[in-house]
């Protein structure tokens, strides 16, 4: 059963730009330019692309905030633009950078409001709240005012709020942005369970490749308002599997260091950048550096999503 269906969906914006002293020029910008895809019930789809590619315009059309300029769109059996309120009862939305919780009130109050606003039957509300509290470890936080929660705690609170009304589709916009490693892991574990155990369809935008790797079985890359890749994660892996970077701070300036299994790509005073294959563990490289050189500090950088997308483009162009 297809839960999300798009058929040649387009969205243009009219931008007025100054041209000369008083004249203003109207210009059409195609934010989404002919999207056609379906998402089946129970899928977990990563929706990625560079900034300004049309990701958020798509999400806004799927949630009923924006109306498409052309094309056909259905989510959970509803036309989002025409039945916004009916749609709202069937979807859950989490914005990573904006909370929907009530700032000055205990977490529990936000959930109580959702119960009334979404007209959630009592038994469903209790069951869903209990499950979220357990899985997201919210028990101790329920009576804490939201303003006192950490970013990670608040995100967990937001996730619970988006799921109390048994949504068929869950949209997540950068759900792990700004979170620490432990919180990220908790959020991902939870999303996996929601997707697997409840069959909730998940559509997720993110800049964090690990989110996609750990959660999604399908990834869509969008650019200039069009889908440029839609499929499994293999392409992502092929592109992402290239190299990671180990950044080391030595005690002093050094000529490029020599470490087996890695090569120096950049030197800047006491700091050096070493590239090594993504599938290899960083541990032997780190150990090798530490054994031979006065190592002060280090970090490992994953390939950035933009790099990966760029590589995918390259492959599309070649293939």
């Amino acid at each position, binding site marked *: 059963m297809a839960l999300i269906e798009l058929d040649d969906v387009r969205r243009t914006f009219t931008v007025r730009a100054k041209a000369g002293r008083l004249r203003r020029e109207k210009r059409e910008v195609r934010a989404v330019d002919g999207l056609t895809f379906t998402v089946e019930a129970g899928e977990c789809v990563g929706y990625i692309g560079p900034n300004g590619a049309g990701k958020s315009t798509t999400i806004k059309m799927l949630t009923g905030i924006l109306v498409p300029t052309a094309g056909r769109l259905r989510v959970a059996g509803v036309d989002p633009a025409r039945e916004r309120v009916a749609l709202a009862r069937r979807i859950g939305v989490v914005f990573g950078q904006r909370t929907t919780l009530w700032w000055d009130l205990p977490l529990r109050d936000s959930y109580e409001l959702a119960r009334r606003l979404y007209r959630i039957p009592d038994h469903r509300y209790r069951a869903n709240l209990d499950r979220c509290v357990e899985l997201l470890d919210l028990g101790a936080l329920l009576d804490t005012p939201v303003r006192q929660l950490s970013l990670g705690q608040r995100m967990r609170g937001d996730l619970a709020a988006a799921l109390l009304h048994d949504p068929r589709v869950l949209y997540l916009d950068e759900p792990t942005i700004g979170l620490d*490693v432990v919180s990220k892991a908790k959020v991902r574990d939870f999303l996996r369970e929601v997707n697997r155990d409840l069959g909730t369809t998940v559509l997720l935008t993110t800049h964090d490749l690990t989110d996609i790797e750990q959660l999604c079985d399908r990834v869509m890359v969008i650019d200039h308002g069009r889908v440029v890749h839609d499929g499994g994660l293999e392409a992502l892996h092929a592109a992402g599997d290239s190299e990671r970077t180990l950044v080391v701070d030595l005690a002093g300036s050094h000529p490029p260091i020599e470490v087996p299994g890695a090569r120096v790509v950049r030197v800047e005073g006491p700091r050096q950048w070493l590239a090594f294959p993504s599938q290899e563990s960083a*541990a032997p490289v780190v150990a090798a550096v530490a054994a031979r050189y006065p190592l002060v500090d*280090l*970090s490992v950088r994953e390939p950035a999503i933009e790099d990966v997308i760029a590589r995918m483009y390259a492959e599309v162009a070649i293939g």
Partner: protein
Amino acid sequence: MQNAGLHPPDPVGDTPAPPRPRRPDAAPGRFAPDLLAALRLYAAVARGAFRRFATYRAASLAGAFTNTVFGLILASTFLALWHARPGLGGYDEVTAVTYIWVSQGLLVTVAVMGGGFQDDVQERFRSGDIAIDLYRPVDFQGWWLATDLGRAAFHLLARGVPPMLVGSLVFRVRLPEHPLTWVYFLLATVLAVVVSFGVRFLVSLTGFWLQDSEGVRSVTLVVSMFFSGMLLPLALFPGLLGDLAPLLPWAALVKVPTDVFLERVTGPGLLGALGFQLGWAVVLLAAGRLVQLLATRKVVVQGG
């Protein structure tokens, strides 16, 4: 991430540290260069505020429209009053109407209704950044005073001049007879802004103790509108109220500048009026400094 345990917090992280304001040279014993450096800094801050407000051109236009509408309304009611009682409070019909238009020009410039830097401070309270602000190397009070002066300079042009122009086109108004009066008026307006800043600064700092400092603002708004003479010249206040109102700091906001503009005070009277403003400016800034000190201490004790 198989190496998650290897590196706890990212030491060579991707996020750059937030920019810090440049510390004005604060070495002791170099008073004059210090003062110069500080003045230069505050001048830059004021210029920045001027430019920031200047970008809201449409807002200024809409605001000037509102000032003009209120000017038209109040001028009508004043004309009705002076029609019934010519010469009331030492104003004739022309000076009474002029009073309305000058005070409408001052309303936003002097921030009689509050606002200006207060909105920024309120936002800093909401985000919690206010505790950090107290520890910045730039002086908290001086910084906000500079921004408010920059804002006022812009508002004098954008929100002060248009209602004056419209008013003088639609009604008969009295312009100063002596050219120097314009200079005195400008001086009185600057002092009015500083006094107004002193009051608003104290109001904003209540945010350290009261969560609902918006409430304090709405209360001071009405008090300020009433005692500044924005709604009715203080000369019309009777009895004890009439004795008291000209002594309060709000009299420095509208009463003094309009008195200067209409040349109701000249010579020694003019000096006294400007001195009155200066006195309140000093007292309020000192009080603000004291409260700022208490706030800093409170933040230290409670950690914000």
